[in-house]
């Protein structure tokens, strides 16, 4: 509860910063709109030539793209700027000032710089999901809805853990400019279901860089293509990864020696 309140405070202060540059804010929103519209356009072009891709229909793909933009948006709103600043702090040795604050350091590093303006992507993602579901029509029951919400939360957690681990690596590799580039390189692959990719890429997207399953599994849940085993392993896997990322963060923190040491 306390952390939710902190989050709200962070969001408010960052929004005040952003409101100083109103044209910027509008440009950001416009950019998000362009990005989402062109991505959807790409899918539409693909579907002018076929009715189905690897068993995925257009409405199902619409839902998938919606999930993709919700995850991307959540990343931009909460984590992206926060982690970039965090790595800057490690490089400069100013992380000390965060560590002495009376709140969980992992939380402060992950979500201090909330970018409210980026929420446009999340909204557009929700619109696409709604649109997709409406087109699928019958067959989206309570069970599918529930599975969707659970797996979407898991997907969010997986993306968060990936970013946390990549950022934590900054404790050891201060010089490597920006390891988050790994995330940015692979994130493009999230726009299609992970099962269309060849083996090596599918495995990468399901394990080391779990963007693929984070996007695909919730969309499968809506489409009713997710069995109980899939649901259970998604939840179990997320719990494991979550535990590992937290442990890894602590190891990194132990390795940090501060500015003056």
């Amino acid at each position, binding site marked *: 509860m306390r952390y939710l309140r902190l989050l709200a405070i962070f969001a408010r202060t960052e929004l005040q910063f952003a409101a100083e540059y109103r044209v910027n804010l509008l440009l950001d929103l*416009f950019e998000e709109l362009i990005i989402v519209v062109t991505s959807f356009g790409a899918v539409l072009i693909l579907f002018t030539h076929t009715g189905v891709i690897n068993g995925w229909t257009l409405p199902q793909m619409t839902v998938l793209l919606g999930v993709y933009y919700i995850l991307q948006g959540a990343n931009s709103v909460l984590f992206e700027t926060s982690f970039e600043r965090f790595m800057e702090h490690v490089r400069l040795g100013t992380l000390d000032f965060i560590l002495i604050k009376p709140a969980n350091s992992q939380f402060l590093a992950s979500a201090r710089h909330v970018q409210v303006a980026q929420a446009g992507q999340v909204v557009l993602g929700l619109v696409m999901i709604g649109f997709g579901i409406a087109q699928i029509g019958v067959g989206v029951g309570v069970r599918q809805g529930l599975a969707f919400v659970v797996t979407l939360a898991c997907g969010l957690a997986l993306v968060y853990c990936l970013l946390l681990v990549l950022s934590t690596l900054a404790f050891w590799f201060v010089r490597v400019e920006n390891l988050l*580039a*790994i995330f940015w390189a692979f994130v493009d*692959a999230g726009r299609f279901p992970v099962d269309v990719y060849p083996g090596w890429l599918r495995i990468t997207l399901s394990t080391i860089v779990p963007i693929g399953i984070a996007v695909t599994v919730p969309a499968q849940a809506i489409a009713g293509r997710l069995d109980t085993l899939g649901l259970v392993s998604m939840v179990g896997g997320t719990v494991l990864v979550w535990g590992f990322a937290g442990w890894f963060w602590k190891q990194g923190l132990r390795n940090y020696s501060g500015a003056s040491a």
Partner: protein
Amino acid sequence: MSGLLRMYRVLFVANFQAATQYRVQSVLWLLFAVIRPVVFLAAWSAAAKAQGGSIGDFTVGDFAAYYVCLSLVSQLTMAWDAYDFEYDVRQGKLAPKLLRPLHPLHYAVVSNIVYKVMTLPALLPALVLIAWTFQAHFQTQLWQLAVFVPSIVLAMTLRFVFGWVLAALAFWTTRLHAIMHLYDRVSFIFAGQIAPLSLLPGPLAVLGYALPFAYMLWAPSEILRGGVTFDQAMLILLAQLVWLGLSWLAFVAVWRMGLREFSAVGA
């Protein structure tokens, strides 16, 4: 002229030495060149399989050949000067660079070429792997290979100069990132990244052939995979030349006006 050549030689040596320090970073950037083409290649392959093996006149093997070529071309034509330039303007680092005896363009040319020479050895095995995974089918004939050479040189120069036109906009606005994102999205559709131009729906394809973006990526890729007739190839080269000429004129004009603007701000 021999003075310029000597200058270039010195710059090349210095740049190569600097580049060897950042090999990890270079490999990271390489991921970008490989993953986007693979994403759309995988999607088109799945679509083609659902349609019984081919879409338009593209079989799965043709798609693979096209996207392998596209990946190579997008790496070879890459130009990132707008980002660096905006940073320099914003941080006030441009003024000392303008005082140097050589135009900033020369430094950019050298670092651009050095980066590509450094990354190519890592890219080629990755491309072989992709071509093998998707069973790429190249129809390239010898003359197409020959035409590819001027076409890729024109594409590299066009994308480079076009990038500098955008870079020079930093004289007026430091919100260049928004413009660059827009450029990236337009290329995404019209340069042949989401689909070979012939598979775009009618009006979009017409726009694609008319705009300059396809001549940076689609054109050399299509020539290299062997997907064009001789007449088409000549038309493509002509279009590349025209767009290069126009971009160069635009660059000269924008740069001259921008410099005036810049000195006014700095004074």
